[in-house]
């Protein structure tokens, strides 16, 4: 322990590191302190401001975890686009309309009106979700919504019926901290999932194995715990689960169901889809799969096999209730082990939403943020394939590392300007005001060269960061001592914040 801290001190180089990162031992039922508080929030929220960290630092860790899990919202705080309530029939009509106005060209190319509509709806839906992530006072709910989206994946590229993706998102939010067994059943009946994994094409005469395969491989057991024959039999059991052509809701078409006997994981019977799910929920691997994935989300890259078994047992013992599991996970020794601080890489969504949150940037339009997420490899509602975003190390490549730094540099160098021309940081600086008054023509903010965060000091830090001392700024922004030395405590807060954002440690959570 002492040796490790000593090394960290060396890495940090300057005055800021060694003394600051000595972890203070916390006693039971006592104040957890700044670093534990920061860690808890970095894993359960999208970034944390100094005030948010301070608010729980003086409380007991167990009590803080308890607070995260009580009075949980199950619905979004912001209003979704109006079309999300449209039935499938309305969508069909709109598409026919769009198709009839086809033949137009833009930039010399024919426009695919349907594709344009899907793109536009997808963009609105992503914007809305990012708005919700920024607006929510329960970021853990959004993190778990995103977790389920990445577990029970569906992509707009295939689903195309965008209101179904919205409803699936609402389902994930309702179930975020609810019950996994219930969620699994609802997902199997979910219209977006039925489209995404071809459940709608799965009929007695021609079984489609897509959903059955991913159900076993990705959603529950994991590879190596079932046979090809189990997949075939499970697929037969789900035949007939489909969508109503007009409402777009689930419908069980009995006449298309294969009522014959199936053998699944060593059991035989005239199984339906519900029977298959019940068998899977009795299998110990199902709980382990979920616990392993939660471990990689909240603790570290490498789940501890013994702890996974213990937590999976607890999960099943509590009938797949999420709250007892998450409580046990957050209170596990591994979660609080200082070794695991900064041991995960921020996903693009965490990096972007977290940075905007911590800096308190107003976001009149989420489009540039979503665009940056796409550039960094994580477009909401469009995971790369059914396995979801692989995450972990794969978030960082030579190209995405440069892009991440580019995004951060943009915030540092041009904080009077939005990513898209109108997102000002904090209050606009006086010179901008003056120039605008003088010109009296443009309401747009624009960059003032040489006025970057680096050299204006505290004046331009927004309300979330201003007034915070340099040492606390660094401890807020970084999960560990800075990797790259080069900032000294004597510099302006703006320069300290800029250096921390560009430090490699900023990519970690």
């Amino acid at each position, binding site marked *: 322990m002492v040796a490790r801290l000593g090394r960290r001190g060396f890495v940090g180089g300057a005055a800021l590191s060694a003394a600051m990162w000595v972890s203070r031992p916390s006693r039971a039922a006592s104040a957890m302190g700044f670093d534990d508080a920061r860690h808890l929030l970095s894993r359960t929220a999208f970034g944390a401001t100094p005030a948010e960290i301070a608010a729980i630092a003086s409380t007991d860790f167990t009590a803080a975890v308890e607070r995260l899990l009580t009075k949980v919202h199950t619905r979004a705080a912001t209003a979704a686009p109006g079309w999300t309530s449209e039935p499938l029939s309305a969508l069909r009509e709109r598409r026919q309309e769009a198709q009839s106005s086809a033949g137009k060209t833009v930039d010399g190319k024919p426009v695919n009106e349907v594709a344009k509509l899907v793109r536009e709806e997808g963009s609105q839906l992503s914007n809305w979700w990012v708005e919700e992530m920024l607006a929510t006072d329960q970021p853990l709910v959004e993190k778990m919504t995103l977790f389920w989206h990445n577990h029970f994946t569906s992509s707009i590229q295939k689903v195309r019926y965008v209101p179904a993706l919205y409803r699936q998102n609402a389902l994930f939010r309702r179930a975020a901290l609810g019950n996994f067994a219930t969620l699994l059943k609802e997902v199997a009946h979910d219209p977006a999932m039925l489209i995404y994994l071809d459940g709608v094409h799965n009929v007695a005469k021609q079984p489609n194995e897509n959903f059955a395969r991913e159900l076993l491989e990705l959603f529950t057991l994991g590879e190596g715990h079932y046979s090809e024959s189990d997949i075939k039999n499970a697929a037969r059991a789900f035949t007939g689960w489909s969508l109503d052509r007009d409402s777009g809701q689930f419908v069980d078409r009995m006449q298309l169901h294969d009522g014959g006997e199936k053998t699944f994981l060593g059991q035989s019977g005239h199984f339906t889809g519900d029977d298959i799910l019940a068998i899977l929920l009795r299998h110990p691997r199902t709980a382990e799969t979920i616990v392993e994935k939660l471990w990689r989300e909240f603790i570290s890259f490498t789940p501890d096999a013994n702890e996974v078994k213990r937590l999976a047992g607890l999960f099943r013992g509590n009938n797949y209730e999420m709250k007892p599991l998450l409580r046990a996970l957050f209170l596990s020794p591994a979660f609080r082990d200082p070794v695991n601080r900064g041991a995960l890489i921020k996903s693009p969504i965490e990096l972007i939403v977290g940075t905007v949150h911590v800096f308190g940037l107003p976001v009149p339009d989420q489009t540039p943020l979503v665009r940056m997420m796409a550039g960094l490899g994580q477009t909401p509602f469009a995971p790369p394939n059914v396995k979801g975003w692989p995450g972990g*190390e794969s978030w960082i490549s030579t190209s995405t590392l440069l892009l991440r730094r580019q995004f951060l540099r943009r915030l540092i160098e041009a904080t009077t300007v939005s990513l898209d021309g109108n997102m000002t940081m904090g209050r606009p600086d006086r010179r901008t005001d003056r120039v605008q008054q003088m010109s009296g023509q443009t309401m747009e903010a624009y960059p003032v060269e040489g006025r970057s965060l680096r050299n204006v000091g505290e004046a331009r830090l927004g309300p979330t960061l201003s007034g915070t001392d340099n040492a606390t700024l660094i401890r807020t922004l970084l999960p560990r001592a800075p990797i790259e030395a080069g900032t000294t405590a004597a510099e302006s807060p703006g320069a300290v914040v800029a250096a921390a954002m560009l430090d490699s440690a900023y990519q970690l959570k």
Partner: protein
Amino acid sequence: MERRHFLLGASTLSLVLASRLALADQGRRVLVLVELKGGNDGLNTVIPYADPIYHQLRPGIGVSRDKTLQLDERIGLNHKLDALMEGWKARDIAIVQGVGYPSPNRSHFRSIEIWDTASASSQTLSEGWVSRTFEGVELPRGAGVDGIVIDTNALPMTGTALRTIVMQDAENFLHQAAVMKDAKNPHDDGNPALRHLLAVRQEVNGAAIGLHDKLRDGAAPAYAYSPDGGFGHQLDLATRLLIARVPVVAIKVALGGFDTHAGQVPTQDRLLGIFASGLATFRKNLIAAHRWDDVVVATYSEFGRRARQNASAGTDHGTAAAHFVMGGKVKGGLHGAYPSLADLQDGDLKHTVDFRNLYSTLAQGCWGLRRDFGQRSGRPLDLFA
């Protein structure tokens, strides 16, 4: 009949061979992108001095005739660009007039992104146009780096097809490398996330170290740059990279401060002076090093500015503008058509050359690669000798 057919075949073959050789020859030029940040006022840079409407639109900030370097009977350069006249007379400076795109966006960030990615106004692309140009092209791996950005905006060269480094980072890393005593231990503290991050950084910066060695051993430029505004420093580094023959496909530099909403003239005068003196020195240095034929300099900016001056003796965000293309193998002179001041759209110039056509021309002229950037009907410009 048979024989004629055969002969036709043979001559076609020799034509193909000749053109392939030509492509290989062209493949060696390095594109030097110069971003003019903030939106340079094209109307006061390349001036339609003979047009009375120009002087009506700009009673306070218009460049007077005696401060205009006449290029022909209609068009002249701002006198602050005097240093470029030597290249103009040697006919290796081309001016492309009226460069822009349909449905122009007047947001700094969105518009520069459109230029950086060569997208349509309504389209969003995440990779830069230079990188996209090299998709599917095998580049020699030896150098460890394909593009160098001596600026903060790396977007034109960012993407999966190119290994691009941002030079400020490289310098920073070299400094840190010197500070760190234990080079074998990257100080990941046994943290696998950090270990991966540092490994990727090492990959990016490994290229930087190779560069450092090349630069250290390379010759210094023959003519010194003036240190004004950092632009000279950037061009100095670019010159050293080119003299050292670092095999990159593109280098990017930038000059900022062109967002002249108020009191435009002194600001733009100063910047144009820095721009011209820097590039004139760059030209002289590369001629002295016998590299000028292998280099193509191209300027770009997010937009030009409104035709009519505003109430603060400045100009607001506009649309099309003239841009410069220079190099030993560039066909000097005026290219494209100057947008008509009598035919404005919402007070802005209508572009006459789509910037994607300019990019297509550059991709062909620098690297022998045919790319249309979605402009299927676009005709290439006649920029290369």
